[in-house]
Every structure is written in C-alpha cells, then in structure tokens.
C-alpha cells in the first residue's frame, strides 16, 4: 500500500504522532513494549524496532497469539502496546480481546491501525467498520478515537499512564489539526468543536473535521449546529449527550458501520433518556471496492452529506 503522506496543507498522518509519542514514552519507561503481527511497517514501528530491538515482539501473522501474548506481557509487568491493522486486531482476535484483555482486566493497550476504510480498495475483509459494534459491549475497555495528530499523541500518553485495557483506533488517512484553543485531553469528555443549539452533530476520528465544515455550510443557511468531537466511545460522555439531546435533533458521523457504533450508542442513550431524532451517517454494511476518498463521498461522509443529514434531522425535529 502506498503510504499516506500529508496531502492538503496542514493535513497530517496521525501515525507519526503515535510513533513519536510511543518512542518518547519508551525512553522514559522500560516497561513499555510493542507487540505486532508482521505489522512493523504498517504500524510505523521501524524506528522503535531499531531503538528497542528487545522490546518489539513480532509474533508473525498470528493475531490471536498476538493479543494473548499482550495479556501475558501485562501479567509479567510490562505495558504492551499491541499494534495491528484494526480489522484483524479486533476481528480475528475478538475472543482474546474479550476474555484475555477485557474480562481479565489486563493493562494492555490495543492500537488499531488503518481503521475504518483506510484500505478502501482491498475490500470488506480489510475494512474495519464493525469494531465499535463488537467492542462497545466490553464495558471496561476504554475506546478512544483521536480526531487529529495532537489528540493522537495525548491519547497515547494517557493510555500509557492509565491502568487498564484501552483500544486506540487510529487512522491512516491524513486529517487537519482541529486547532482548538487551550485544549486539554480529557478521556470520557466530548469536546465542543463548533457552538450551536439548533442541532448537535456528534462525530469521531477522521469525520470530526468534516462535521466542522458541515457546520460552516449550515451556518451560511442560518442553522447553528453544535459539533462535538466524541473521541471517547467507551465510556460515553452522558452530560454532553444530555446537552446534545436538548437541542432536539442529532446527527452522528463515524467512519464505521451505522449499526452498533457511535450512532448506535447515541440512539441507545437518547431512547432511554430523551427521545430525539438521530440521523446516523456511516456505512450500511459490506462495501464495494474503491478508494477511501470515493467511499467517503459515496456514503455521504462529506460536509455536504453531513449537512444533508442535518436537514433530515431538523425536518424530524418536534
């Protein structure tokens, strides 16, 4: 696969923030190790491997073993960052993630690379759009989906400090920095990216900047949308969801299936607390082959597509 490079001005490959931060942390803390499945290059861990050859454990193409080994390394007092393409990390090793990491409560950091549809042309086996749905029920697994390079670095630092299982869902697709002033990383707390009270657009990961652009389009029509960077999916920021529901209409946006992910979580919450229309933007199921950009456009993960979903939600508003 071609490596995603910074494209438009200011767009960054968050994987650079991931590896730079991991290397800094590993310099300071000898307990930090990386575990991979023949994924040194795709996890961008080549320089980590050079610096810490004994602390890069490549189990080969064997994801179930990789996750089990991660649990064992935690038992042995290490802080493992288990890094692999998110489709195989979460799908192939799902029972290991459930039983060995979450249920056993091991201090393991699962790092899903090239998540969502970064491998667009490689097809549904390589798309990771089901991961939210199959990991959300693991309630003690903190799920973080950074929206930009800054948040990626902060999430990696926090994961290393935090005692407990974490799933970091990283992307291969370049994104712009959100440039929020006086920013603080607070896991479990949604960030307001754009203020508004006509409706709330709740996004995560690569779609947050698209939601912010959608808010600009809506503003030109006189519609004030609140945009939330909902980077922690487990646990949910309930206060932010109460406030979002109070606007009377919600749009969710995620580079994932519309079934069981962020949109599903928001719909569960609102139906139990304050029923409001929820329009979910994401993918309906197995996708055809095509580039990431094409798939984003085709399925409405674009400023225009999100703005259209906002109109649908507003039309249903009581």
């Amino acid at each position, binding site marked *: 696969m071609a490596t995603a490079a910074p494209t438009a001005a200011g767009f960054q490959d968050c994987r650079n923030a991931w590896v730079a931060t991991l290397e800094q942390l590993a310099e300071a803390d000898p307990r930090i190790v990386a575990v991979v499945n*023949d994924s*040194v290059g795709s996890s961008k861990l080549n320089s980590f491997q050079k610096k810490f050859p004994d602390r890069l454990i490549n189990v*080969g*193409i*064997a994801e179930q073993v990789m996750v089990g080994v991660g649990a064992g390394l935690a038992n042995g007092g290490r802080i493992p960052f288990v890094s692999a393409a998110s489709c195989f990390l979460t799908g192939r090793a799902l029972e290991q993630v459930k039983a060995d990491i979450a249920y056993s409560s091991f201090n393991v950091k699962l790092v899903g690379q090239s998540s969502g549809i970064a491998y667009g*042309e*490689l097809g549904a086996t390589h798309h990771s759009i089901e991961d939210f749905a199959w990991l959300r029920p693991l309630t003690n697994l903190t799920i973080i989906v950074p929206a930009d390079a800054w948040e990626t670095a902060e999430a990696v630092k926090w994961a290393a400090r935090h005692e407990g299982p974490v799933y970091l869902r990283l992307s291969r697709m370049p994104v712009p920095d959100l440039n929020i002033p006086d920013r603080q990383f607070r896991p479990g707390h949604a960030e307001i990216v754009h203020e508004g009270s006509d409706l709330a657009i709740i996004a995560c990961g690569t779609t947050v900047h698209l939601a912010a652009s959608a808010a600009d389009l809506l503003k030109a029509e006189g519609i004030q949308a609140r945009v939330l960077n909902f980077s922690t999916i487990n646990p949910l920021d309930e206060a932010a969801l109460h406030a979002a529901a109070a606007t009377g209409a919600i749009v969710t946006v995620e580079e994932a299936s519309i079934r069981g992910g962020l949109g599903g979580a928001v719909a569960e919450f609102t139906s139990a607390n304050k029923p409001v229309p929820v329009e979910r933007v994401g993918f309906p199921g197995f996708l*055809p082959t095509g580039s990431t950009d094409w798939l984003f456009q085709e399925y409405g993960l674009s400023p225009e597509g999100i703005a259209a979903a906002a109109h649908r939600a507003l039309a249903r508003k009581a």
Partner: protein
Amino acid sequence: MLTNDKLPLIRDKALWMRRTAFTMVHRAQLGHPGGDFSAMDILATLYFGVLNYDPTRPDMPERDRFVMSKGHATGALYSALCAAGYFPEDWLPTYMQPKSLLNGHPNRNYLPGVETNTGPLGHGFPVATGIAIAGQITGASYRTFVLTGDGEQQEGSNWEAAMVAGHRKLANLTLIIDRNRLQQGAGTEETSGLDPLDDKYRAFGFDVQEVDGHDHAALLAVLGASPGTKPRCVIANTTKGKGVSFMEGVASWHHGVPNAAQYEQAMKELV
C-alpha cells in the same frame, strides 16, 4: 492423462499472466506483485494442466476446487481466471476501481471461479478442508487444492485444519504452500520460523512433497498425480517476485508498485 505436451501451453499462460498482473498493478498503483509472481507458475500449472473445470459452468458440482487462501495475490488469481475463460479481458482494467468486480481480495458473490472469499490469512485451508469433507462423505469425485503463503502458515487456524484433514485422511485434499521464504515485512525464518515445515506436516498425517515451484514439469507431476491415502502437502519452493529481476527476493515488493520505468523494464524482461 497428464502428459508433458501441456507444458508449452502452461509456459505461454504463465507468461501472459505475469504481464497481465503487472499491468493491472501498474494501472491501479496498488496490489501485491511479489506474492503474485511467486504463485504464478503454480496457478498456471493448476488451471492449464491439472484442474477439471468449465468456465461456462462455474457451479458445476463435479468441478475440482481451487481455493486461493493467500487472497492478497489477486494479480495472480484474476489473471488465471481470465486466462481460463471465467471473465473477459476487458474487466481487467477495472482492478480495484470503484465498484469493480475485481476487488482487492477475491469475492465469490460477484466473481465466477472464486470458491470462497479470502483476504484475512489462514481462512482458505479450513474452508478447503470442509469442501474435501463434503467430497469424502458424498463420494464425489472432485479434488480440492488450496494455496497458502508461507508466512500465512503462522496462523494457528492452518494447524487446526491440518489436524482435522490428517485425522480424517482427506486424500482428496492437496495443500500447496508457496514457500518464498518472505512475508510482509521480512523473512519467515527471522520473524517466526516455520522450518522444518515438511516434518511438521508429516507429523500431522500428510504425504509431503517438495518441488521447485517454478518448474512446470515438476509441478505438473506432483499436482497431477492421483490421490493416495492421505492428504497431500506440496511445499513449492519459490522466489517472491519471480520473473522480474528487480523484484526477485526483495521483501518490499510484497505490496510495492512499479513506476513507469520499472513497468517498462519488467515488460522487456517478461518475454
């Protein structure tokens, strides 16, 4: 009967498939040419010397089954299926374009000749084992062949399948391992070593044979031989990127893609 008069056809097809696959990868600027080229002679031998199939009847119950477990090597599989007549040549330029039937990994729901969807490694051999069990319990005459990568053998599912196939003495099943000694990032032996692969499969109840995976006559003799009393494991010793000088044995061509000059150079060599 398997006679060596098939060899000129196999050689011509293998050459056409290499040129076709490289053209697809060059056009798409995506693909896995290293693993395409190590498998090319195995596929050409199977499709033009061994398998019983009818491309106009891809669901023919008595067809021999070929399962491409190393599903990333679609340059090899699609050029073979096209050469075998399963779909027209004008589909080839759509490789990995939006909504193409030629997905980055094979999909049986829209491409005739594909037995099962692969892409995640370690799936094909278990499915092939099931196909062979179906043949065993129904007394069907078809044979089942499955091709895995060698790095792919690190997936434990292969060894679970090997235990089942050995236990059930699935003589109608042939596992072919593309032993190019490279996986995605490095050599297999430096990553998580597989040797001695032959002894391992022997211990699991397989009849094991090693062959030069680029020697059509040798491949034809081994793959075309009648079934014995045990499942067969053919370790095909190959070179990743075989046939293009700058790709041969170079790990980065696992998913490297050619620029215009490299494409031209390869086309000069592939004659």
